[in-house]
């Protein structure tokens, strides 16, 4: 099996020169290249990445949604108990103009042995929308259905945008940060009615290990001497 060695700097240069007009931003870290494109030019950018010879990304490896509304939250103090006592997270309200959702694509080129991560942040609004890439890569079909199901991201142009993983008749988008990990309803058999019923969940939310973000050089970490 003869394969070209991945040449990251060449790919990064090609991306920079080709995507300048589409306002793409190239980032390179840990041996990976990421391209951030605005959602308006996503469709064009993806077509270029698949069809032009210097990129030739024949495969969409992965597509996922990310909810950035709680990014950077977490307890910074010294005692873990304090973090458990104060519930740190409160969700953003819908009118917030900061972009909340992002869609992340992982592309693979067999010809050049390259990988690329494409990220686009979606405009704030009641329903985040993103153009579908099913036409370019049929593999995107289920990945987009999954992102719609779990995050409520609507992919315009998707031929069959149904829920995929959650239950029939499920309400809500469970991977959003404001959706509790315990869920909102629980199910039990009701002997009076003689059938299975749903009712509001009776478990109290509880955090065993809080999310802790230490300040830089906490406890002398990284200090020399």
């Amino acid at each position, binding site marked *: 099996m003869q394969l070209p060695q991945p040449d990251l700097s060449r790919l990064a240069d090609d991306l920079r020169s080709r995507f300048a007009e589409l306002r793409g931003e190239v980032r390179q870290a840990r041996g990976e290249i990421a391209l951030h494109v605005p959602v308006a030019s996503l469709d064009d950018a993806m077509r270029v990445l698949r069809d032009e010879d210097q990129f030739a990304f*024949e495969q969409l*490896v*992965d597509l996922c949604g990310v909810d950035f509304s709680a*990014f950077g939250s977490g307890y910074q103090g010294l005692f873990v108990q304090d973090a458990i006592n104060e519930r740190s997270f409160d969700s953003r309200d819908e009118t917030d103009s900061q972009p909340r959702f992002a869609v*992340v694509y992982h592309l693979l080129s067999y010809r050049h042995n390259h990988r690329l991560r494409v990220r686009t942040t979606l405009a704030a609004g009641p329903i985040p929308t993103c153009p579908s890439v099913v036409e370019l890569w049929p593999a995107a079909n*289920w990945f987009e259905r999954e992102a719609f199901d779990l995050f409520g991201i609507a992919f315009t142009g998707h031929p069959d945008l149904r829920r995929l993983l959650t239950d029939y008749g499920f309400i809500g988008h469970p991977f959003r940060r404001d959706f509790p990990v315990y869920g909102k309803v629980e199910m039990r058999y009701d002997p009076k009615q003689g059938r299975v019923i749903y009712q509001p969940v009776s478990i109290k939310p509880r955090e065993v*290990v809080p*999310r802790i973000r*230490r300040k830089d050089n906490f406890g002398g970490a990284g200090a020399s001497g």
Partner: protein
Amino acid sequence: MAEIRNYTMNFGPQHPAAHGVLRLVLELDGETVVRADPHIGLLHRATEKLAEQRMYLQSVPYMDRLDYVSMMCNEHAYVMAIEKLLDVQVPIRARYIRTLFDEITRILNHLLWLGAHGLDIGAMSMFLYAFREREDLMDCYEAVSGARMHAAYYRPGGVYRDLPDSMPIYEPSKVRSKADCDRRNEHRRGSLLDFIWAFSERFPGCVDEYETLLTDNRIWKQRTVGIGVVEPERAKALGFTGPMLRGSGVPWDLRKAQPYEVYADLDFDIPVGVNGDCYDRYLVRVEEMRQSNRIVRQCVEWLRANEGPVMTDDHKVAPPKRVDMKSGMEELIHHFKFFTEGFAVPAGDAYAAVEHPKGEFGIYLVADGSNKPYRLKIRAPGFAHLAAMDELVRGHMLADVVALIGTMDIVFGEIDR
């Protein structure tokens, strides 16, 4: 004239050939499938959401439960993503151990696949043969981690502990005679490496046995040749990876193309199919077992000759030595903080992929600088394969649906996550 209508049928979720909980809504025209609509999610446990609520180390056992027939490969992608973000160097011995167990896992997975696929389309005895060898490999899992399946053996920075010097021995009892024990204990007198070596001597002969049963079997060929043909370009577009892609004739394997751990130093070949049908994918997987055996032997030889640490000495990531923890105050505090608060991973994102027995298994990890992942996305190979189910079964007979589910090597733990 009677009115002729298409017939809609429910396949699963409790059908034995559905390999778990697949509900397949099939639209039939006579016995020909017109449309297939897989309904998945019956095993959805929201592993990705759960991982956001837990420290990095606590999610390692969740990875075992994704694809529950190739446990350590799942862990491998997860710890590789963490190591990438932390920029931790893994000791060379740990890398060989990981390679060894990745290949043992590949054999384990392909044996189960071969047994279950055979069982689905009528080769009953395959299952019994495959499980005979699986038992020995499960013992290897148990020897290193204490668990036969859900090992939690790979850790960020290395592996949990070094390979043991002895294997557990069967003892005679009311239900097991001394002669039987002696036969089972024949290769258990030495270390784990001796046990694996003895297995690798025997295993190519076992694969020959499987091939005697299937490769030229008339019924087997009638059920698999020409079924579910995928063109190479279409396979790429549909997101196929692993044997599904190689069966179509694309020579692509992450172990060769983007080598991780020590695969670059090892000698092995990548089998590739020609026609892209179920039979070629069967041949590819059988040959992969032989190649895995080659890799296992090379790893055992290296591990016998070279000693060394199996965990990084960066104690931000690795727990203190147990004997130090029992005798030193600082180590005790370190141990307590390590397992209650965990370690922080610097903010950023990383994607790590391994050549899982089923295809490319990837972990996309977004870290926010705290002790828990911010977002974890699991890229399961079976997910993309099952998504192409509709396209593959159209025009085939109802009985071929079972052959196609089998050839995809579907496990619902990873598809539903």
